[in-house]
């Protein structure tokens, strides 16, 4: 298993603890240093991931729409998003005069922080988890709820009618869809008997017929639907419905603040796919034990990126729902289905 990153992690651990011990510093320094290293590595990975996803979205949409997308900068335009990010960094930060400056400033910060914090419990590979807390899935749902506050802050702080309409739509939509989203994973929790993210992965095992997607197909479908709504992506992209609200909550944002909303959107998409992979698709486990020569993080990334692709596919195929249909769908269709799913799962778990 030379390709697994566990050896590298052990090596880093030995080096850091060696340095700390040789300097005669207390153990807490070692822990903090290790933690900072992990955070730096994670943020570095996520930034590259976000840039990659933006490029990928452009490519996916382009090929669905019979065009090429970015082609000029680098091989198939792979460096285009870096160029765009650099451009946004140089932009002047414009704040409208009537805006609530503090709220306007903190909104992108909150959305970005919440988005990054949620990755703390994602198992990227075998032994590759920033921290395995025993209520991992609960932590994720708690942290991602911050999004609604930040988007509402953005809508309110901008002091723009379109932004406010967008912010209010977001609040209503995300709060509504949070319910079926949380309930949809309840089936998996019942079957696995744990709340820890590593626990979910290990209870599924390296056999694709043992993954929870098969007994929990309804739960998976509800999860993906509700998650798409949480992400404010088509067909649920009402908060930023361009043709109705121009840009929704981020209408008054420019430069790096806008980029933060944008990056957070893509990272959230990856996060949702990563959680779905962990819960329903066996996480970093290969589909068959014989395929374990491919490193676990490759399996994890492959599955997650496939789900990301599916979510992108939705976006470039479907029209947009209307506000009242959206709410009706959450409360009248998804919620009863989720309850039914929980009931049947509980029955199944009790019988077997």
């Amino acid at each position, binding site marked *: 298993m030379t390709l697994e990153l566990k050896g590298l992690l052990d090596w880093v651990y030995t080096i850091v603890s060696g340095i700390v011990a040789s300097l005669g510093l207390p153990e807490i320094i070692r822990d903090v240093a290790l933690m900072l290293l992990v955070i730096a590595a994670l943020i570095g990975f996520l930034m590259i991931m976000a840039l990659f996803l933006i490029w990928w979205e452009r490519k996916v*949409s382009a090929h669905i729409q*019979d065009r090429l997308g970015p082609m000029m900068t680098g091989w198939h335009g792979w460096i285009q998003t870096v160029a765009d990010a650099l451009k946004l960094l140089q932009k002047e930060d414009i704040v409208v005069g009537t805006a609530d400056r503090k709220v306007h400033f903190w909104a992108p910060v909150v959305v970005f922080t919440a988005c990054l914090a949620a990755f703390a419990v994602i198992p990227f590979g075998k032994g590759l988890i920033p921290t395995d807390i025993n209520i991992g899935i609960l932590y994720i749902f708690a942290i991602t709820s911050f999004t609604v506050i930040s988007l509402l802050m953005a809508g309110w702080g901008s002091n723009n009618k379109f932004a406010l309409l967008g912010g209010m739509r977001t609040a209503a939509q995300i709060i509504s869809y949070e319910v079926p989203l949380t309930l949809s994973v309840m089936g998996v929790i019942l079957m696995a008997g744990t709340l820890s993210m590593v626990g979910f992965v290990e209870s599924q095992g390296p056999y694709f017929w043992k993954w929870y997607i098969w007994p929990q197909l309804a739960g998976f479908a509800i999860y993906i639907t509700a998650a798409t709504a949480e992400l404010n992506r088509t067909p649920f992209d009402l908060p930023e419905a361009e043709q109705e609200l121009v840009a929704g909550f981020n209408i008054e944002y420019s430069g790096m603040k806008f980029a933060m909303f944008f990056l957070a959107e893509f990272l959230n998409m990856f996060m949702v796919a990563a959680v779905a992979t962990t819960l329903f698709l066996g996480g970093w486990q290969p589909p068959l034990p014989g395929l374990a020569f491919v490193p676990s993080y490759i399996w994890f990334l492959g599955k997650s990126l496939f789900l990301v692709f599916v979510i992108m596919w939705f976006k470039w*195929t479907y029209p947009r*729902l209307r*506000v009242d249909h959206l709410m009706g769908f959450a409360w009248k269709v998804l919620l009863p289905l989720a309850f039914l799913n929980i009931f049947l799962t509980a029955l199944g778990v009790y019988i077997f």
Partner: protein
Amino acid sequence: MSTLEIEKTQAQDEFIINVGPQHPSTHGVLRLILRMKGEFIKDLKPDVGFLHRAIEKIAENRTYAQFMPFTDRIDYCASMPCNLAWVTAVEKLAKIEVPERAQYLRVIMTELNRIASHLIWLGTMSLDLGAFTPFLYAFRERERILDLFEMTCGQRLTYNYMRIGGVSQEPPQEFYPKCKEFTQYFRKKVDDYEALLTYNPIFLSRTKDVAILPIDVGLNYGASGPTLRASGHDWDLRKIHPYSSYDKFDFKAPLGTKGDVWDRYIVRIQEMRQCCNIVDQAVEGLPEGPIKAKVPAVFKPKGEVFARIEAPRGEMGYYIIADGTTKPYRVKIRTASFAHVQLLKYLAVDWKIADLVAIFGSLDIVLPEVDR
């Protein structure tokens, strides 16, 4: 116009928003003042005139032939029908007989342009409903039509192809096979659009039973074309007052049943198929002969005339008063979009802002045609 008028009626829990003139879904520069109660539209006022170019006034200072390029600019999505309406009016005024070959060529060009115009409508309407992909598909097919036009007259948007008494030039020989190839290819593409949209549950929920236009209201507001036919009123000038030998072609004018957004959508989709039939028939039955009647270089008609044709958006007509000089005394242009903009208030009030863009898209309004 100020927002004051609409503000007077504003209640405590309502607010005014301005949609446009710079807004992604106003298809140009239209300003709508909305009085909103939450997501609901309580009152609406279109503010037109941002694209006013005084084309009717310009007509008074140009000879009949010189005005031709200006008609292109009235509706840049469908220049050929604008050309056709003007030549039809002038020919009626000066009593000019048009050779049959020219009439057929006019039909081919007008119908191809009708498809191109409907493609822009389809793209922008699906874009308004949040479906991005049909927009690019529609423009891909439109490109082929523009190639055909470029082959014929060298222009891709403002063609200036028709002449009083005929058309400006013969299309090249390879035009006709290309034309047939296109109609065959395009019929399949219409199936693609329908697969993406027509019975998509989200699309249905956004369009079915939304903003129903009864026939009598439509007639009172002066609606015409596909918008009125979607309500079930069988009124197609190509059938009722055939011009340019439309009576020789076999085609249907598709009708809707109740006049909601979906009906307006499906009528236009079916119309695109009918256009293909007409183009095929015209290419096959194209008679030999001259493409332009002998028209004197300077002619001085006298009298009043109104001629109208079925443009992609509805009836387009020119009312000309000629005083016996080389220039018209007065020209009044009747365009369908102008009548349809008035419909917006009737249709959109008490619907949500999300429906407004669907309704606006389904009416197929082109702003230069409204303002002229």
